[in-house]
């Protein structure tokens, strides 16, 4: 059963075709890697998926629901959570608040609940708080709860961004270069963490340049070059795929 269905999507920036007739299906409960040389259009695909850029042609479905050209907050509420290539935490807010904000789409309290603190609002706050602490504990970040997010080390910030995304109870988690800038130990830890999420049944789509990570973590790999999909399959197949090798190393390699 495919959870995400990208159907012949095209995105142009002026004369540049950033994503060209791109299709992909992501199955429920899988980890899929999206790889390709710099400028291949990977992050653009992510930005189309999350509604940051409008799609020029094609459709995107989450389950049965069309999310093409929906506002980003609606797509997030529908169940797509993401992290960013260049970490975008709420730096001046506490670690706990970052995670609680991540749970925004699962809450309902408005002005009335905020001011009068009725039962429903109090219960919701307690649930969000408890959930946030639990997620932080599971990620080993609980001890930093009251720390400012911007004060965490780089590796922990990357992890916190994932935890914040998880707080929204997403159906699909998309990670944009989660291991970028991490040292080998941090990468190992991150991989173990992503594996645990996968074991829980979460569907994950990730962009990554660290091939070791992609090949050992992903069940399926999609390769892009010049905005097009040039290959798709299990990692061992991708490794020996002629088109992929050419895209990375050039012809005649």
């Amino acid at each position, binding site marked *: 059963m495919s959870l995400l269905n990208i159907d012949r999507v095209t995105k142009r920036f002026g004369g540049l075709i950033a994503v060209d007739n791109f299709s992909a299906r992501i199955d429920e409960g899988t980890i899929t890697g999206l790889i390709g040389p710099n400028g291949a259009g990977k992050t653009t695909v992510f930005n189309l998926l999350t509604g940051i850029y409008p799609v020029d042609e094609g459709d995107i479905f989450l389950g049965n629901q069309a999310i093409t050209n929906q506002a980003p907050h609606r797509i997030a509420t529908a169940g797509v959570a993401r992290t960013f290539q260049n970490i975008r935490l709420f730096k001046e807010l506490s670690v706990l608040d970052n995670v609680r904000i991540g749970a925004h789409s699962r809450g309902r309290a408005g002005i009335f609940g905020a001011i009068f603190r009725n039962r429903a609002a109090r219960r919701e706050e307690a649930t969000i708080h408890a*959930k946030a602490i639990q997620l932080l504990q599971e990620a080993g970040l609980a001890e930093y709860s009251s720390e400012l997010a911007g004060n965490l080390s780089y590796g922990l910030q990357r992890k916190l961004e994932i935890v914040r995304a998880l707080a929204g*109870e997403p159906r699909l988690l998309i990670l944009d270069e989660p291991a970028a800038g991490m040292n080998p130990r941090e990468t190992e830890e991150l991989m173990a963490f992503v594996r645990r999420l996968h074991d829980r049944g979460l569907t994950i789509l990730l962009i990554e340049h660290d091939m070791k990570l992609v090949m050992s973590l992903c069940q399926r790999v999609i390769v892009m070059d010049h905005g097009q999909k040039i290959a798709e399959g299990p990692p061992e197949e991708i490794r020996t795929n002629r088109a992929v090798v050419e895209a990375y190393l050039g012809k005649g390699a």
Partner: protein
Amino acid sequence: MMNMSKSLLTSILRRIDEKEKSLYLLLLIAVAILPLASQSDYVLRIATLCGIYIVLALGLNLVTGYAGQMCLGWAAFYGIGAYTSALLVMRLHASFWLALPAAGLMAAFFGLLLGIPTMRLKNTYLAITTLGFGEIVRLILLNWTDLTRGSMGLPGIPSPSFFGIDLDGKLFYYYFIVVLVIVTLVTMARLVDSRLGRALQAIREDELAAKSMGIDTTRYKIVAFAIGAFFAGIAGSFFAHYSAYIDPHNFAFGESIAVLSMVILGGMRSLPGVVFGAVVLTLLPEVLREAAEYRMIVFGGILMLTMLLRPQGIFGGVQRKKVSLTPEAVGQGKQPLYQNRLPEKAG
């Protein structure tokens, strides 16, 4: 050993909380007995003025401090509240007690109206637009003479009455603004520490990330404007009846800048800071009355120094709340938190 040090820590933390509480209580008592301590009308008038500016600045703080949206036309909402209330009472003979919330709602309505087209704008563009809005409102108040009497202003705005008893005493106004300040403070403290308040702060920190968390940023910014404007409208209504006379120059650009300065001086995102800023910048012109010609120089100088030395404001910066990790606080075992929990950490 661990337990002991932990309980010691919590008791210290609690004591700090207690200290803070008693500080607030002392402040409250001081505010309550001020009229007894000083018989001077002048002192009472300045104190009441401080109250009005505290309410105004707290409203703006929600927009600029928490949601991070610049506004250079705050006095417009103040003026809309003042004129709404005065005209309702004078022309339609409405009760002050009806006109007061109506003034707040009218200002909030204009907050929505301003918010809908402008909330896609950022930084400088938003600042200029709100500046324009402030000027438009002032010019309308000035030129719609059939309604507002223009530059002649509205004299003789009546004081409220309560079951036939006229409440025009300075004491009534003083204690009433104290109540309004407390209500505003409690409301703001609660708003800020809620799902809504966190959403506003997320917008200030990183709008794109906020959207990706499911926050409808446009809607929340408009809501922030409307709530803040509501309190500005309330302050305006109070001011109109208190001073018994208003004219458009009460709500000019200088007023907007003064309120913004209060928020900046005291510290954005800090409620005590904003109160402090409002009090200092209300008192300052009084203290400097002798050197009236140099007043604005000193005023501007203080702002420049704040921006240079402490851009986060005197009380600004971040207050950290210790997060409790006890099972009760975490709420373990009370309810299933989410459907598919993470499995136990392996090995």
